[in-house]
Each structure stands twice: as structure tokens, then as C-alpha cells.
């Protein structure tokens, strides 16, 4: 199968799963913004995306994408390290046009994955998972009270900092990942390369800012209302 | 004395090749599989020959000394390749290309060979385009042409300033295809060390694996050498570092005649020598002469100031510049053939008008072209050459330096002639077969097509003509009666003897254990060659040169030092083997130059010049190819055998580029 036994095929898997995950992030970010406007509205969405069959199917698919993306990442990195040979350069320099992110995608990816773990523990475990096992108050609040969990989580400065680090890593990961995915799929040339890079940077920044806005706004709100870590 | 049979077919010159092909003997496909051919060299000639022969069905063994066939020095040719396509509708024709080549070669080439070269030139362009060579094109999608020295038509096809590279990559890709098909077996980092002759025919080679240092034996029904020229005998030349004359010398020592060694081309547009640590000279493409104007100051005091570094080229106004080529040769101007341009530069510098600190440089100026075409167009044409020049010299020729009275002066380049190409080489007949049966020589390493001087953009043409379109036919005429000869065993005593001879030589060189490195002796040889056997030769100088070369040989035999051992890779040993052959080669050049009491093309004897300083040929006494026969020892002077030239289609005239 060319998607596993050719170098371009393996990269196609990375880029297709990556693009799908970017689309998911876009959706997730848009959903989060609702929390800034209306608590009820946000919880309606949470309820809609509870342990329903369609949400479960989508979540499973999403999980599969994440797993494939990560497994391929490690696999590719292992192969690439082998291709580099046993001896390392004693002196290495980085040309100006080489982005830092592009050479550290795995590290960034690991940070992103760790953040994801935290995020699942903070929200998914208490919401969808709670519903699946039939214990809606597993996390202390109602499983569909996403708004409540947001308020709770981001009142804690430690989580705020961790989430912001996570988002920063995500930003670096995506700024490279965006154009890189299109390049791998062959949708690029000398002109479009620059365009994709610009579009990717703007798009990534908007997505990450959208996420960060929720984190920051709810933290600031918590400062006003005096809530604290649970 | 031996007689020479050049095997030129009967009939008018325009029909000879067609007649030959119609009547030559062929080898049928089943038999081709049973015949082996060794091709030494993977440049334009070697790669194209190996690819074509393999494709025909012969079993080919192809050798190169570099790590890949693509490194061969054909790659460095910048300017272009000639062909008589007449795409520009400027009156070109096969005859005109033939005529220009013979005239450019100062009427010392073999007419029939040159006509064939011009005839197949068009097929080369077709072949290369079909292979994916990205020649420059017009906006309409047709192929573009430029003009080149020695011609009044635009017949040169080019791929940026990298034509040689692109043509070689084309031939290399054809070769790669045959390697993949299994018809050609490739041996990289192998160097030919000896020719093996069995019963008077070339039947194999001894080659050294340059990585392991081991000698290996290879047998075949025919041997083709395509090993390039001998310009590195001069140490400093535009040739690559590994270019050498050893394969040719091995053939010469085994009895192949060496023809016209004194015809050495000096290229007029090289970057001047900068110091004694220099390892090679860099050529700036001759295409620069299309738009660049060559000049030195009119006033001697300006030249003195330039030499002292108190003035720059751009400080000298238009009226004080002597565009000496345009002055002396109004019809061709800056586009005179290479030998004429080179000598004219030497003449000016000898008179003290040189423009750099050594006094051995002239200017090549683009101010006028930039004014006429704009910097963008000029950069489009020569940008990569300008960049290359800047990298080496720290001067940017596209940079505006000064404005005097509204005239814009850009930084001029400095150029000086340097050894570039060798027209002489192993003697071959019309079939490209040497005087040893079964041994063929193609490309620069044979002598046949350029006479005493080669026109720009003709080397690529000849290499590919020989490899794609001539040798694959003519070699069959030889092989057709070899089909009953079974493959040879490399255990035959001839192979053992040849290998032992090489081994003995290596042991001898390794055991000298003197105090001088190969390069230091090579540099000394180079100085002697340039001084006495260079651009302006005299009988007295040549005799002196021969004496000096003898001393170099003594020094080499007594004082050479090679570190390490003969086992494994030993780059100094490999260089030493080549140097020993360069010494013999150098002598051969000098012998030929001394015997040729005339000036023609790349061979200029100061005693034989017109009052205006132009070359003075002597057609009565020297209208022949000078073939040199080895006399059994490097110490003994070789013997000259003459192949008289017969011209039927062209009337021999004095070359005239003035009007």
C-alpha cells in the first residue's frame, strides 16, 4: 500500500490527517467562542454533542485521526533518524529560511499531545466519558454543563498557563503544518508557496487566538468573581 | 616507414558518409549480444557511445574515474553547441558549417571528417531535445540561437550558460537507461592503467579500482577511449583536476599514433592567474564576447596606473580605450576565433598594456551592451557568469562604477588566455579507429575534426557526433568479422603481462621516496610548458623546453615522494602515474611544435608570422597531419609520419577575419 510503503505516501497520511485535525480545531474554536457570548447557548451545544451516536462516531473518527497522526509521526521520525546515519555533525548551523518549527515538529507535537491529554482530563472525561459510563456527575458538575467546567478550569492560573503553553506549541505546529500539508499534497508552486504560508499564518493565528480568548477571558472573569482552583 | 591509410570513402565530400553507411558491414542483433565493447570515459563522447552501443545490443563496459559519469569535464562547457539547422533563416547550411569549421581550423583538419560532423550536427540537436535537454527557447516556443566566434550566422544552441552540463546530463540519462536495461555495466572510480593487445588487436584494459587500489582485468572485442584532452600537461588550464592524458599515452606507447599534439587551444576569456597557489583557471564563457567588448588602454601611462592599482578600468574614458579586436578585425570584431583573440591579447600585454598587477590581463566590458539592452537583458543572458566572476574576484561586472560626461561605465571584467582544449590527439581514420586494430578514439581525445584550432561550440558537437552517430556505425564495420571470436579470458598471458607492467611501474614510483610532491613537480612542468611550448613558440625556445622537460623527468624519477602505500586509496600515487604521462605528453607537444615550421591555428611559431603579426601557414610543406610513433621508450624521440591532406571541396586560403 503506497500510503505506508512510500515516503510520499506516508507524508500524505500525515498531511491529510493533519488537515482534518485543523478543520476540527476550527470547528472546536468556533464552538468555544459561543461560551463567550452565552452560557446557555454553549451548554446546548454540549448537550447536542453528548454521548449521542453521531457524536460518538465523530469522536471515534477524530481519535483515529489523532492516533494515526501520532503513530506516523513517530514512525517517520524513526526512519528519518536512521536515514541521517550514525555520525552526527559536530557543528551545525541553521540557514535563515529554515523555520524553527519545521525542524521540531515532533517535539511540538508531543507538547500538543500532552496538552490534549490534559484537556481530555479536564473536559472530555467529565463530560462525554461521564455520560458514556452513565455517571453524569463524575466531574462534580452535570455532564452537559460545559460552561461550568470552563469557568471552573480557567479560574485556576496553573491551568491557564498550561493551556497557553499548549496553544503556543499548537501555533508553531500549525504554522508549519499548514503549508507543509499542502506542499506534500502537491498543491503548491513558487507563487502559491508564499500564499499558503501567509494564509496558514493568518488562519493559525485566528484559530489559536480564538482558543486563547476563551482561556484568558474566563480567567479574567474568575479574578473578578474571586473563584479559585478546585 | 609505416604508411597511413585514413580510409576515406570514395565520392564527393557531401556523399561520402551516406555512401559509407550504405556499404559498410553491419552486425546482426543476435551477434551483437555476443560482442563486448569497453568504453573508457563517460563524457559527451563516452557516455553517448556507451549508451548507443548498449541500446544497439552490444555488451558494454563503461569506465570513469569520478564517482559518477555525470562529473566528466564535458559538463563545464558553457556556451553552446553548433548545428546547421538554419532555424534563424540567416543562410546557414551543412556546407557553411563545414566550411567555417575547416577555415576555423586553419585548413589542417581532414575534410571528409569535418563534412560528416557538419552533416550529423542537426541530428544531435534533435536527439538532445528528445532526451529532454532544456535548450533556450523563443517566446513562440521554437529553439533559440546565439552567435559565436568564427561564424557569421547564429547557429549555436544553448541552455543558459550550462550547455555542456545539460548535454552531458542528456547523455548520462541515456546511459543510465542502458545501465538499468543491463546492456551497460558501469565502473565508477576506476582508472585505465594499460591497454591489452592480443595478436595485434586491442582486446582489453587493466584498470585500477581507485578505492581499493587493486588492479583489475577487463576483456572485450574492441576498446574505445573517450578520455578527453591533455591540457593539464600545462598544470594550469581550464581542465578539471582529474583530466589527464594517461589513457591516450598508454595507447600511444602500445603503438597508436599521436596526431598533431602541438595544436593546443588557448581560450581567450579566462579569469587571469592570481597567485602561485592557484590550482586551475576558470573559464568565462566565450558567449560573453557576443556583447562584451575587449579593450586595453590606448595610453601606456594608463596601463601603468592600472598595473600599480592607482586607477580602475572604469576611470578610463571611452576615447582612451583601445578596442583592439574591433580595430584590427573590423568584420568579426570581438568574435574572431579563439586563437586570434588570444594572440591579440598576448600581443597587447607583451607591449605593456596589460591591466592588472601582473600585467597579464585585458578588459572585457559590458558598458555598451548594458546601455543598449539594459541591465536586465544583459543579466538574463550572462547573470550566472557575472555572479561567478564576482564570487571569484570580488568585482561585480553589472555594477555601475562611474559616469563620465553622461557616459555610464560599468565595472569591466578582466580576462586572459589560458590553455583550454587540445585539438591534437590519438590519430584515427575515417572510422575513428586508431592505428591499433580494434582500438577506437572518440571526442577530444582523437585529433580529427578541428584541425589546428577549434571553433567555439564545436567541441560538444564533435563529442556527441562521435558518440551518438559515427562510432556506433563504424565500429560495426570492424566487429562484423569478429562475431566468431569468442569472449576472451582475462587469464591469458597478455593480461598477466600487462598487469605486471602496471604493478612494476607502481612499485617503482612508490620506491623513489624522494622529497618532492607530485604537484610541485607538476607545477614546474607547467611553467616550462607555458613558457616554452605555450602561446608564442620559437625553435630555440622549444629546444630549450625539451631539455627542461628532460630535467623534469630526471627530477621525477629521482626525487618524487608518494606517501602511504599502494594498497587502498592513494590519491598521490594516482596523480603521480598521471604526471609521468604528462611529462611524456609535454615532450610530444614540443617535438611536434618544433617540427612544424609554420604557424597555424593554435600553434604559433613566432618565426612564422606576417608583418601584421598574423599566423603564416606554409601549405606547401606542412599540409599534413603530423603523426608521432612511439619508439619503445619515453627517453627516445618519437618518429614523425605524415598523413597528407587532400582538399576537394574547399579551396585552401589564408584565414582572414578582417573583411
Amino acid at each position, binding site marked *: 500500500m503506497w500510503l505506508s510503503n*512510500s*515516503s510520499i*505516501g506516508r507524508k*500524505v497520511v500525515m498531511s491529510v490527517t493533519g488537515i482534518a485535525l485543523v478543520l476540527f480545531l476550527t470547528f472546536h474554536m468556533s464552538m468555544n467562542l459561543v461560551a463567550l457570548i452565552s452560557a446557555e447557548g454553549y451548554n446546548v451545544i454540549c448537550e447536542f454533542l453528548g454521548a449521542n451516536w453521531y457524536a460518538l462516531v465523530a469522536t471515534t473518527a477524530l481519535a483515529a485521526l489523532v492516533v494515526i497522526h501520532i503513530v506516523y509521526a513517530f514512525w517517520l521520525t524513526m*526512519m*528519518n533518524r*536512521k*536515514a*541521517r546515519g*550514525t*555520525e*552526527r555533525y*559536530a*557543528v551545525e548551523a*541553521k*540557514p*535563515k529560511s529554515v*523555520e524553527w518549527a*519545521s*525542524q521540531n*515538529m515532533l517535539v511540538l507535537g508531543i507538547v500538543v499531545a500532552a496538552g490534549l491529554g490534559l484537556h481530555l482530563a479536564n473536559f472530555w472525561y467529565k463530560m462525554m466519558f461521564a455520560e458514556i459510563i452513565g455517571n453524569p456527575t463524575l466531574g462534580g458538575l452535570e455532564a452537559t454543563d460545559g460552561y461550568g467546567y470552563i469557568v471552573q478550569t480557567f479560574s485556576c492560573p496553573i491551568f491557564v498557563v498550561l493551556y497557553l503553553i499548549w496553544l503556543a506549541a499548537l501555533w508553531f505546529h500549525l504554522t508549519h503544518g499548514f503549508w507543509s500539508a499542502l*506542499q506534500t499534497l502537491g498543491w503548491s*508552486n513558487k507563487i502559491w508557496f508564499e500564499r499558503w504560508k501567509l494564509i496558514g499564518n493568518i488562519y493559525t493565528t485566528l484559530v489559536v487566538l480564538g482558543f486563547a480568548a476563551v482561556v484568558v477571558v474566563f480567567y479574567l472573569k474568575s479574578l473578578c468573581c474571586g473563584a479559585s482552583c478546585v | 616507414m609505416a604508411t597511413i591509410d585514413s580510409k576515406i570513402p570514395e565520392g564527393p565530400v557531401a556523399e561520402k558518409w551516406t555512401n559509407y553507411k550504405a556499404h559498410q558491414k553491419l552486425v546482426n542483433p543476435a551477434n551483437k549480444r555476443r560482442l563486448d565493447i569497453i568504453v573508457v570515459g563517460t563524457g559527451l563522447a563516452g557516455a553517448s557511445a556507451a549508451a*548507443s552501443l548498449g541500446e544497439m545490443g552490444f555488451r558494454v563496459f563503461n569506465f570513469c574515474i*569520478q*564517482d*559518477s559519469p*555525470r*562529473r*566528466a569535464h564535458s*559538463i563545464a562547457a558553457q556556451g553552446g553547441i553548433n548545428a546547421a539547422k538554419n532555424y534563424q533563416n540567416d543562410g546557414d547550411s551543412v556546407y557553411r558549417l563545414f566550411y567555417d569549421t575547416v577555415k576555423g581550423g586553419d585548413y589542417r583538419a581532414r575534410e571528409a571528417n569535418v563534412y560528416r560532423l557538419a552533416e550529423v550536427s542537426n541530428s544531435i*540537436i*534533435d*536527439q538532445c531535445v528528445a*532526451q*529532454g535537454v*532544456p*535548450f*533556450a527557447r*523563443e*517566446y513562440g*516556443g521554437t529553439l533559440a540561437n546565439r552567435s559565436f566566434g568564427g561564424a557569421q550566422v547564429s547557429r549555436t544552441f544553448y*541552455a543558459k550558460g*550550462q550547455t*555542456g*552540463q545539460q548535454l552531458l546530463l542528456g547523455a*548520462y540519462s*541515456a546511459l*543510465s537507461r542502458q545501465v538499468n536495461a543491463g546492456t551497460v555495466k558501469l565502473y565508477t572510480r576506476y582508472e585505465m592503467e594499460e591497454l591489452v593487445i592480443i595478436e595485434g588487436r586491442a582486446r582489453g584494459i587493466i584498470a585500477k579500482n581507485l578505492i581499493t587500489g587493486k588492479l583489475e582485468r577487463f576483456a572485450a572485442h574492441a576498446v574505445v577511449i573517450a578520455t578527453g584532452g591533455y591540457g593539464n600537461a600545462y598544470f594550469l588550464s581550464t581542465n*578539471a*583536476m582529474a583530466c589527464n592524458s594517461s589513457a591516450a599515452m598508454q595507447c600511444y606507447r602500445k603503438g597508436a599514433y599521436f596526431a598533431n599534439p602541438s595544436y593546443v587551444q588557448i581560450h581567450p576569456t579566462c579569469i587571469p592567474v592570481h597567485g602561485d597557489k592557484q*590550482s586551475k583557471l576558470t573559464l568565462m564563457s566565450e558567449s560573453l564576447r557576443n556583447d562584451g567588448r575587449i579593450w586595453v588602454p590606448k595610453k601606456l601611462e594608463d596601463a601603468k596606473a592600472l598595473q600599480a592599482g592607482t586607477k580602475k578600468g572604469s576611470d578610463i574614458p571611452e576615447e582612451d580605450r583601445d578596442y583592439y579586436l574591433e580595430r584590427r578585425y573590423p568584420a568579426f570584431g570581438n568574435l574572431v576565433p579563439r586563437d586570434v583573440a588570444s594572440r591579440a591579447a598576448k600581443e597587447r600585454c607583451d607591449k605593456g598594456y596589460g591591466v592588472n598587477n601582473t600585467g597579464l590581463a585585458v578588459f572585457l566590458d559590458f558598458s555598451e551592451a548594458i546601455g543598449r539592452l539594459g541591465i536586465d537583458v544583459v543579466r538574463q543572458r550572462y547573470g550566472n557568469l557575472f555572479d*561567478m566572476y564576482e*564570487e*571569484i574576484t570580488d568585482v561585480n561586472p553589472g555594477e555601475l562604477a562611474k559616469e563620465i560626461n553622461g557616459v555610464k561605465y560599468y565595472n569591466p571584467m578582466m580576462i586572459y588566455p589560458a590553455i583550454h582544449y587540445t585539438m591534437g590527439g590519438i590519430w584515427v581514420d575515417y572510422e575513428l579507429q586508431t592505428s591499433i586494430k580494434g582500438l577506437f578514439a572518440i571526442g577530444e581525445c582523437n585529433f580529427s575534426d578541428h584541425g589546428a584550432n577549434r571553433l567555439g561550440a564545436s567541441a560538444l558537437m564533435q563529442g556527441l557526433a562521435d558518440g*551518438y*552517430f559515427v562510432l556506433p556505425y563504424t565500429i560495426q564495420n570492424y566487429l562484423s568479422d569478429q562475431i566468431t571470436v569468442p569472449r576472451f579470458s582475462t587469464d591469458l598471458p597478455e593480461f598477466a603481462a600487462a598487469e605486471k607492467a602496471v604493478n612494476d611501474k607502481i612499485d617503482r614510483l612508490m620506491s623513489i621516496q624522494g622529497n618532492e610532491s607530485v604537484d*610541485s613537480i607538476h607545477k614546474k612542468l607547467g611553467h616550462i610548458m607555458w613558457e616554452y611550448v605555450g602561446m608564442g613558440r620559437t625553435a630555440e625556445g622549444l629546444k630549450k623546453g625539451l631539455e627542461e622537460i628532460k630535467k623534469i623527468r630526471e627530477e621525477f624519477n629521482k626525487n618524487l*615522494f608518494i*606517501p602511504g602505500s599502494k594498497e587502498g586509496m592513494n590519491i598521490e600515487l594516482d596523480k603521480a602515474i598521471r604526471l609521468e604521462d604528462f611529462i611524456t605528453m609535454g615532450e610530444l607537444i614540443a617535438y611536434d611544435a618544433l617540427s612544424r615550421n609554420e604557424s597555424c591555428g593554435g600553434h604559433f611559431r613566432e618565426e612564422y608570422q606576417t608583418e601584421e603579426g598574423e599566423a603564416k601557414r606554409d601549405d606547401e610543406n606542412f599540409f599534413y597531419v603530423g603523426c608521432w610513433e612511439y619508439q619503445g621508450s619515453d627517453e627516445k624521440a618519437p618518429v614523425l609520419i605524415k598523413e597528407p591532406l587532400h582538399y576537394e571541396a574547399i579551396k585552401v586560403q589564408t584565414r582572414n577575419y578582417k573583411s
Partner: protein
Amino acid sequence: MDKNISFTLKVWRQNGPKEKGHFETFQMKDIPGDTSFLEMLDILNEQLISERKEPVVFDHDCREGICGMCSLYINGYPHGPATGATTCQLYMRRFNDGDTITVEPWRSAGFPVIKDLMVDRTAYDKIMQAGGYISVRTGSAEDANNILIPKPNADEAMDAASCIGCGACVAACKNGSAMLFVSAKVSQLALLPQGKVEAARRAKAMLSKMDELGFGNCTNTRACEAECPKCISISNIARLNREFIKAKLKD
């Protein structure tokens, strides 16, 4: 006139592919600025020979930046700090008095060291043999002007074709990937009508040979493009990807 400089030279010495290598340090004195890097190594070798030691082995040939033979990883850069130039076109005026200059061979599993600074790049030949050509029989070509090629396509093909096969892209790539090299050839031929016929087969064959020979996967870091002495663009890699994916989807 360029000034002379003195510096410390650290050179990788390794006796053979399987042997362990190490750095050797030399003090270079009064090297003129207009000496090329390789001429500087010539000077070092002459010194070594005069001390009856074995010279440093390195690949080099044309010394005018076109044959692709020279390599050398200098101070962290393939072909040294100059851009758009090979090692042989690097001049000592780029360096300063008192510098330490570290010279290493290309390091990649695809290019094993032969000796000292010389590496084995026959993998590139093998990739070319797998499909880097147009199958045309000698003498069977039609007139060169029969097929018109738009100038922009011809120019782009020429840019791709200017690859000299030196291996700097692999040396620069943290993944040891040969994608820039492969893509330059695939691009050149895919851009020309003559090469289109075999484009799919070529992309597949050359890529699978590259993978087979142990080169890594491209992760679009662009180090290859930045270090390429002929400034080959990674847009060629995009084209290779396109050609390859197209071919695979068609199968």
C-alpha cells in the same frame, strides 16, 4: 588585494567506511583571501606531504562549480557559508583571522564515508538509473522544432535541470532525504512534452528507488533549498508529490 588570514582548521579523518573517524586540528598560516577553499586544502596537503604524512582525501574535480564532485560540510553548512556556490567556489576572504573552521564529510546513511571527507554518492546514480531519463532511441528523434515548448516551461525545466547532483540537499536535510534531487529531475522531464509520456512511471520508479536506498522522508524544512548551490526550489518537490500522488491514484 585581499588580506592574508591565519586560522585553526579542524578536519575529519577517517580511514575507511567501517573505521572510526576523528577530528585532526591544523594551524593554517597566512592564507591569501583569494585562495579558494579547495586550494587552501591543497596547501594543507602539500604541508602534510612535506611532513611525509598522508594527505586529506576529498572529492573535487572541475573547480568551477558545475561538476558537483566537491562536497564538504564547513562550519555547519554544506558547501560552506556562501549561498548559491559550491565548495570549490568558496574563497577564503569569507573567513576571518583567528577563526576555527570545521570541515566534515556529508553525513547521511545514503552517503557512506569512503575515506576522510570523501563519501560514496553512487546512490544518486542508482536513482537516475531507475527512471531519470526519457526513453528515446539514438537517431529516432524528430526535428527539434516540431514540438513547440512555451518559453516559461522551458525556462522552468532548465532551472530544475541545473541540479549538479552534489548531494548537499541530503547533507543539509535532518532527515537525510534526497527529495530535492529526485524532484529536480522529475520536474525537469515532467515540464517538457517529451518527458510527459513517462512522467507517472518515472516519478514512481525514482521515488521507490530513493526509499529503497535508505534516504529519509521529506518534512518540508527547506534546508535543502537553502543550501543548494544551484538554488533549486522546493516547488519541484511539490511537483514531484503531485506527479506521484496522481500516478498512485490512477493505479
